[in-house]
Structures are given as C-alpha cells and as structure tokens.
C-alpha cells in the first residue's frame, strides 16, 4: 500500500522531501545544482609526492560519450593539506584518456594533498548535441589514481578510482556540491593486521571544517579512540597506524559528518603495499 502511494507522488516532490530536514540526514550532495554552460564535477583525488610517485588517468568524457576523439582541455587544480590552492596544470588532448604524471612542480612543492580535474570543450561542438545544450547531462570526473613507491624496482602502479567529491571551478573559484550532514560511522570491511603499517588519507570535499574521530574495535567489540582531528575545508589529513607492537587483529571505524566518509588506505608490509578506497 505504502509503495502504491509512493508511486503516485511526483518525482520532483519526492526529491524536495528527501532533501528537506529531517529526511536529508544522509544526502551527500546539495539539492541545488548550479546551472551554467559546461558544468562538470570532479571527485577529490589524493596526490603523494613524498615517497610515492602518483599518476592520474584523466578521462575525456565527451570523447568517451561520442565514441570518437574530441579535443579537450584538461585542467588540474591542486590543494595543500590545509586546503589552499597550491598549483594548476593545463593540457590539451583528443585521446580518450590522458595520463598525468604528478610532480612537486605542479603541486607548488606540496608533498601531499588533494586535486580535482576539470574539462572544457569548444562550445560549437556541444551546441550540436541536444543533451548538452539542454544541460541534461553533467560530466563527472571519477578518474583513476595510481601510486608506486619511489625507490621501487617494480614498474607497476597500483590504481584506485575516484570516490566522492562533486567539486567544480567557476570563475576561478573552487565550489563543492558535497555537504556535511548528521554523524555517520564508516567501517571498512578490512581487518587491521598485526604486522602492517597503515596510512589512512581523509580528504574533505566540503567548504566546512570536518571533524573526525577514529576508533579500533577489538574482538570483544570494545571500542577505543585512536585519533581525533579537524580537517580544513578542501584539505586533507594523513593518519598513521603502526600495529607492529599489537598482538590482536582488529576492525577500524571512524565518525564524521560526511554521509560518505571513505578513506584511502595504504597497507604497507615494509616492501610491498596495497592501496584501496576503504
């Protein structure tokens, strides 16, 4: 019966309700979407120029959409740990994918931080396509970031795709559709092993300070706090966890006001590493 009633309610009304308090407590984006030509949004990606090499596979969404090469201006904006703009890099390419090797010159000397990807196409090309002219389609940059240890003898990068962001540049200024809502606990389906060294990177894609608390949960379900921090708007935070002295295998969890509070996890065993979105 409830489903039947729901099916009578217009979609636009359901959307407004879902974005209104208290129903909006887990909505990760704002209701209002900017309406300007060539709006394209990006996930917030991590770069590491410390003891890792970082590459980024940027997607030429229009070429991928149309199935033919299209000239694209890719622009990458870099942000420091504190969230301030620290670099910009621009390149033109008509390939389906562009491979960017990120170096500290691009990042203004910052060794760790976040970046976003934006694209621009000739207007005359988009005007020929009704779906873009009517702003029905908005491109999203999800890309793939690859990491490799600097001193590694392996030529293999380990990749992960973008995760969350809704960020864009308008008139030279960074904006985000991501929002903080009620407190959420994110518990990745991983076990913290007793012989590994972990680096967890949290990126804040919102324009508000993000507060984070990190917990370990033992096999008796006892929780203990192992970290608390504040992450600046558009900033990032690295949390290190060395479990060499611990004897138990545990689960990890964290609390933030982000409905999607995933982290990028590096699990190191001294020689090799694994990187993944938690």
């Amino acid at each position, binding site marked *: 019966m409830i489903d039947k009633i729901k099916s009578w309610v217009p979609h636009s009304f359901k959307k407004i309700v879902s974005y209104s308090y208290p129903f909006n407590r887990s909505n990760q984006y704002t209701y209002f979407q900017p309406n300007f030509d060539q709006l394209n949004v990006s996930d917030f990606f991590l770069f590491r120029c410390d003891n890792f090499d970082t590459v980024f596979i940027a997607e030429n969404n229009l070429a991928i959409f149309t*199935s033919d090469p299209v000239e694209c201006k890719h622009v990458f904006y870099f942000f420091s740990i504190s969230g301030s703009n620290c670099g910009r890099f621009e390149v033109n390419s008509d390939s389906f994918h562009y491979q960017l090797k990120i170096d500290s010159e691009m990042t203004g000397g910052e060794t760790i931080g976040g970046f976003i990807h934006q694209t621009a196409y000739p207007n005359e090309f988009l005007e020929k396509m009704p779906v873009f002219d009517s702003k029905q389609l908005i*491109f*999203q940059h999800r890309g793939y970031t690859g990491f490799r240890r600097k001193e590694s003898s392996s030529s293999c*990068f380990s990749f992960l795709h973008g995760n969350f962001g809704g960020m864009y540049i308008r008139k030279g200024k960074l904006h985000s559709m991501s929002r903080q809502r009620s407190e*959420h606990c994110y518990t990745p389906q991983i076990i913290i092993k007793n012989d590994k060294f972990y680096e967890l990177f949290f990126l804040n894609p919102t324009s508000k300070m993000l507060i984070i608390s990190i917990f370990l949960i033992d096999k008796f379900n006892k929780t203990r706090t192992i970290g608390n921090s504040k992450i600046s708007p558009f900033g990032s935070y690295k949390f290190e966890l060395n479990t060499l002295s611990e004897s138990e295998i545990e689960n990890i969890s964290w609390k933030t006001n982000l409905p999607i509070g995933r982290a990028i996890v590096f699990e190191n065993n001294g020689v090799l590493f694994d990187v993944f979105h938690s």
Partner: protein
Amino acid sequence: MSDYLFIVNVGDNIVSSVHISKFVPNRRAKSSEYINFKVGVYTQTKNNVNWAKIDEVGFDGDNNIQLKSSDYNLEIGQLAVVIPCEIGFELKESLRILPKPLSRKVDFSPVSERATISFERGKAVSSYQGDFPYQMSKVKGTFLAFDALAFNSHKGINNKLILINIFSQELTEKKQFSLHMINSITKENIKKQAYIHNSAAIMNFDCNKDLSYIFYSKDTLGIPIFISYHEDFDSNLSVEHAHPPAEYFFGESKFIGQQELKTNWLSKLT
C-alpha cells in the same frame, strides 16, 4: 539494494579472497553498529545450470569472515558466489535460482554493502571494496569498459581482464558468449575470449602504449576487474575494477548518459 560477493580462480597462482565483517559498512552514528548473518557459498560447474552449495559459514563469535578461492576446488574461470543471508535461512544443497542476498543496510546512508575483494600473488596483495549488485544479477545486459587501468603496459608486465558475470535467475542451458577487445579508434577487433554464464571470462592482453582499447560484450553484463603485475620479481599487484559507464555522469543524468554512451559504442561494433 543488496549485493552478492564472489571468489574466483583466475589462474597463474593468484588467490582471490573475500573478507566481510559483521559491522555495518556505513551508518548513521545512532543506528545499530552490526548485524548478525551467515554466508552461503554456491558455484556452478561448466555444463551445469544448477547451483551447488559448497560452504556455509557463520561468524562463530568472531567479527570477521574470510573465504579464499584456494580453499575450494574451483577450476580456472570458475566462480563461487558468496551470499549473505539471515542466520535461520535454509541454504539448500542445490538451487536453480540464487536467493536474494540479505541487505546489510540499517538506514538511508549511501554506499553499497561491500566487502574486501582481494587478490594475492606471492607476497603481493591488492584489494578493493567490491560487490556484485543483486539488481545486476537479474538482467542480461551488455558490457563496455575502457582500457584506463591498462596503464601498466611496460615490458614484463602481465595484464589481465577478469569479467565477473553472475546471473541469479533460472537458466535452461549454458550458452557460449564472447568478450571482445577492440582498437577504440579503428573499432577493429584485436582479441576475443569465450565465456559462459556464471563464470569469469579471463582475458590476458598486451597493450601498445600508443593505442587505446575498449572491451565489450553484447551478450551479458559483468564487473570488469583489471589485474597487473610484473612477472619476474616480487612486484606490486594492481587490482581495480573499472567504473561503469554511468559514473561518467553526475546526479540524475547518470542513466540517460550511460544508455546513450553504450548505444554510441555498441552500434559501431560488430
């Protein structure tokens, strides 16, 4: 929404595993912290349309379950589907239709109910948080993925595409399907790999750095996992799933975009 998980024998001494905990992956702070469930493990052999139960595992007082492909006698390309279900649910020895997996959501928090899907070769391990959505397992569909994760194209690097295909509904016969690799500019066929329902298509491929490729099937949908590693020494293993075409678009435009994108490509491919 609820999700299946899987383990698979991909050959070349690579062991796949699934790790799942009873903690709810994403929840509001005031919602229940964990849920109790068990998992059933089912597989289909090459010519059989029945699912055979090969395991049933509970937490037994622990917080985590880990299942490895090497613990089961799976042939190369054979999948085992891991189904979260309620403790009291009867998991029959043989099934024609897979049961709907238990939802591990406790509120409206986003993010699918994933598990860690890992691949291990020697000392190298690589993983991602993954799943196989139940909704996907009910439709035939088509598949299209790009070569973005084949960036590791240097000499001595092995690249594999593993296409995971799960069809939970009843089958009357096992049909032969084709996974294609094509040059994305000329649309010329480079390679073809046969596979069947409820298996993993495994395609080993080489990449020329100056060319770009796409992979497609007009027969079924599937989740593409790209694995790269250096053959000669203890190398990192790179494992990541390519995101589906809907992810190139934001918000409500996702599904219109995906449909048009797939039409634009598949109409040009034979």
